[in-house]
């Protein structure tokens, strides 16, 4: 599965292309696969139990997972995952 990853926090990573082979196409399995590979970086946004850390949000193709199927959201080849701190105003 090919994914695009963005991370918006104290350090910013944009449009990083990665290939993963998660156990299933659910977000929870994709996150587990990501944790295995990017544990430290991802740890700023996702706790060991896969829930977002305080002040963090996970977007799948620009949509908050809370307005999708949460950790059961199906991830497809080519999808974009954004891990971000909350932002307010501009």
């Amino acid at each position, binding site marked *: 599965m090919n994914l695009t990853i*963005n991370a*918006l*926090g*104290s350090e*910013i990573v*944009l*449009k990083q292309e990665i290939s993963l082979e998660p156990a299933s196409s659910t977000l929870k399995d994709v996150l587990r696969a990501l944790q295995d590979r990017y544990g430290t970086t991802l740890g*700023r946004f996702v706790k060991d139990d896969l829930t977002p*850390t*305080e*002040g*963090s*949000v996970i*977007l799948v*193709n*620009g*949509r*908050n997972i*809370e*307005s999708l199927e949460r950790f059961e959201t199906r991830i497809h080849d080519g999808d*974009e995952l*954004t891990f*971000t*701190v*909350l*932002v*307010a*105003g*501009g």
Partner: protein
Amino acid sequence: MKGLQGKLLDVDLTLGKTKDLTIPEQNFRKYLGGRGLGARLLFDLLPPRTDPFSPENPLIFLTGPLTGSMVTGSSKFVVVTKSPLTHGWCDSYSSGRISVELKKAGYDGLVIRGKSNHPCYLRIADDGIEIREADWIWGKDSHSTERMLKDIDRNHSAGVSSIGPAGENLCKFACINSDLYRQAGRGGLGAVMGSKRLKAIVVKGTQEIDLHDRKKLIELNRENYQRALKSRVAQARMKYGTPLTLNITHAGGILPTKNFQFSTWDKALEKIDSVGVYKSVKSHKSCLSCFVHCSLVTEVSEGKYKGITLEGPEYETLGMFGSNQLIDDLPSIMQANLLCDQLGMDTVDTGNVIGFMMECFERGLISPNQTEGLEIRFGDPEASLAAIEMIAYRKGVGDILAEGVRTAANYVGNESDRFAMHVKGMGFPAYEPRGSFGTGLSYAVSPRGACHRRAWPPAIEILGGTPPYTVERKAEMIKAMYDENCVLHSLLVCDMPAKFIPMSLDVYSEYFHSVTGESISKNDFLTIAGRIETLIRMFNLREGFTRKDDTLPYRTLFEPLPDGPGKGQSVGEENLNRMIDDYYACRGWDSLGIPTPSTLQTYELSNEELHP
């Protein structure tokens, strides 16, 4: 009540006289200050249906009860008037030393009425209050004006607010500039100041401000500073400033692109977003009285604009001069930002109307013959910069553009009003409502026109768990956001620390008590907010606004988004009407948006005020 001076300076520029205007303490309890007191004053002082450029239209500068204390984010002020852009209510906010200096000079604000028969500036200091001749600075840009006034007074710690040539030339989105890089930007306040031939206000005060419990206030600041240090949200904001927002609006599909035709723009990434701007950062800065340094001081390091430096660009400018015009050259956007600041124009409405003209050119609705040979096309920074100057000096087509995007669409005709992106005449700021229906509702019902400062729905619809393309509970969401910001804008503190530390209204209740000695609970604050928003609604109704003005442009309502997470979405008339019905209902207004008798009673507002 401590923390307040209890009076405003009432300036009559026609007579060249000033006097004190006492504000009953009861009015501070009912309206707090800032936006709230401004609503009461504008309603009472402006004769109904007065032209915005009439000498009778007051230009009201107000601080709040927390101004001049050490509460973080408390060096803000608001300017209230009848807008020449919308012909309705206008409140616009800015940081600036002038807020604190006014309080220290013994005033909670200024009411400026009349019209001088020659250019003038107002000087307030310990040695007196004077209306001085300003021929020698009329025509100067706002940066030169501020520097020259400080030089001549040999007082570089004075607060100065001024207008640039755009305000003098009555550009209807001219701003008021303070501390070089801070603007009360929206709604054309600078043009009202220009119509009064008032070039600037200089204030230096030395009085102590009496605080109820200084020790408690310091303790609260310490606590909240520690929380800011631990907050990842605050830390990211302090490092990247508002440009970080562009990465979110792009990811969430609400980034205005090509005059709001699209909602994402890959070319913005690493060029005009948090990453791009961060490369130009020289230092970080905070406003006076704030421990959150979220302002970026940037400098162009190479190329044609090498050496220019400014505070910014903020997200709004990056959106409206960047993606919305398909310009990905950061130095050009920084130059546009600087030009708008110096000439004294709102970067939101300026960027909006230029984006509109670019689409008109692309569609062949306008030709270079109508624009003195200038072709204003998407992706052309030189044309964009040329257009800024034409607008400020009302040269050629700039004379039309200076009236705002609604009037520009009337000039172009050919159904161009379908993509003139405004509400009540005020241009859309940098959020695409088709990707965030709550943003659509917020723009539509805002009393000052399309406004991003009363509510920030992306916090809930993009970053929160609420679906963005639905209408359920959006009215309650917008009312709650409006009311919280109304309290902050009436206490007159920056709403940013409240959002990203975060600090709830309970925290501000403690701050309020430490400054004034008065106890107002969060719920009491929210009741006051309901009163203020209802009074502002009554003002606009009195000025001739109706429900039909609470609407959105054709593009937003009917054209499906062609890209991004919201691909295929449009707000739709039925959806908008339902959200507006719900919003009016939760405000206690009837289906026409008129406050009901019981609502007026709840808020202790007089029925006669609605039908004077």
